[in-house]
């Protein structure tokens, strides 16, 4: 079995266990062929959507991925500040963006993506109680995690950032960026190593750190965490 086939099998095996509905939005760029068919016009969008459909098709109808062309949906595009495609958003019931993926959830990144889908659907989240207890001391925050698909330690940082965001009641947002596919973002942050985590565009954390380090960065300083 090739590694691609193995990963597909994992998606199928795990997604079928989802019992609550989850809606995700995928922003792509689409054009219309002469025969009226819609096609993706951005280079990576076709492959990206094919991957996302594997998650959707194996979820017993629980996952719905709404593909929105930025050309046909200027209002959404503006509202969620979509600056590049493909982009996947986890948006909560209040319309707040919780997780943004500028990275294909493939290879080792399958795990944190599925974990996020399940937690977003209400599955138990290990960090939830502590995050909620400390929300009063956390300003609206963004955790950006720079990754590549070959980095062995990135999935753990992605997992923590996403689970924090899901527990954050709209106050915490995670943004997952594959900097091998978004070179300009990596260059903007001078990131030449992964995982590279930036909290609120201020505090940069190089390498893999424990979840408590991210929590302290969110709270600010070395304040004793309430638990």
């Amino acid at each position, binding site marked *: 079995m090739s590694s691609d086939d193995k990963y597909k099998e994992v998606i199928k095996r795990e997604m079928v266990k989802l019992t609550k509905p989850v809606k995700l939005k995928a922003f792509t760029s689409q054009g219309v062929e002469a025969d009226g068919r819609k096609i993706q016009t951005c280079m990576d969008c076709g492959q990206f959507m094919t991957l996302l459909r594997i998650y959707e098709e194996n979820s017993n109808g629980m996952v719905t991925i709404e593909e929105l062309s930025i050309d046909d949906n200027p209002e959404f595009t503006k509202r969620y500040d979509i600056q590049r495609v493909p982009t996947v958003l986890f948006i909560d019931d209040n319309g707040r963006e919780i997780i943004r993926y500028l990275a294909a959830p493939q290879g080792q990144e399958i795990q944190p993506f599925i974990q996020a889908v399940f937690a977003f659907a209400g599955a138990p989240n290990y960090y939830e109680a502590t995050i909620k207890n400390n929300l009063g001391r956390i300003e609206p925050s963004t955790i950006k995690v720079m990754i590549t698909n070959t980095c062995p330690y990135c999935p753990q940082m992605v997992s*923590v950032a996403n689970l924090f965001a899901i527990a954050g009641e709209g106050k915490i947002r995670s943004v997952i960026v594959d900097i091998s596919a978004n070179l300009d973002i990596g260059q903007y942050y001078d990131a*030449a190593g992964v995982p590279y985590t930036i909290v609120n565009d201020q505090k940069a954390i190089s390498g893999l750190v424990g979840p408590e380090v991210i929590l302290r960065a969110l709270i600010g300083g070395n304040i004793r965490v309430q638990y």
Partner: protein
Amino acid sequence: MFNIDQGMPDPDKLYDVIILGGGPTALGSAIYAARFAMDLLVIGKTYGGLIASTHVVENYPGITSVSGTELMEMFRDHINSLNIPYITDKINSIEKEEDHFLLKSVFMSFKARSVIFATGSERKKLNIPGEDDYAGKGVSYCATCDGPFFNDKVLAVIGGSDSAAKEALFLAQHAKKVYIIYRGEEIRAEPINKKRVDNNEKIEIINNTNITEIKGEESVKAVIFENGHKFILDGVFIEIGSIPNSEVAKKIGVQVNEKNEIIINRKSETNIPGIYAAGDVADAPFKQAITGVAEGVIASYSAFDYIKSKK
């Protein structure tokens, strides 16, 4: 691969054993604890441990050659086939209560009859100016993670161990030139890897040299040698050994040696009944994934015996 069914740990449950760590030692230990039908929980920071970042592993019996990442996935498959619960967290303190230990992290507290330290080690830092400033900007501790950022660049690996040689060999697949900068006379790589280094035209060894500073602008541009010479390059990979993660163990009174390694006997027992240690955090003179796994397995067996004697 992973298994979403692992669920949440239970703070009220009294676990038979809690295994601290996420590398081969911890996972090997967990597999045996599960086979002994112990109630267990694994709490680790790094799934796969340091070996996950190893370019190629060629000395694990039964597997001729595998990348560290693939080996980690094989461990994960095995762990998941046994439904062993694993969480990403760091235990900050352990207290002895009447018949059990209380383990606390920032996120939760746990109770266990026994504890196995398989917490491994952290990469040692050079502690020189520029090292922290350029972390993730040309200073790296993981060639597998960051090597692909340095295509056609000039790099240095600092250190003279077998790991340093392997890092250099991996980086040479991407870089234009890789210098191994070592403070000693001759690098200490295993003969098979020393030969590979010697035969690789892209790799050059600079012996008897310390670096005192890392310089750069937005990213690394040079290192300064002890003699003041400025050496131009694009990235520095630091591989000068590791420091055992034994701080939490020390706080509860576990005995360590002068290197801060936990002192264990042939049963992986520490000086405190119910607390065991294995792998890179322990005091074995030769540390490999295979030796760590063996110590971890023995630790599980000893913990099993200990709990049986208490029930």
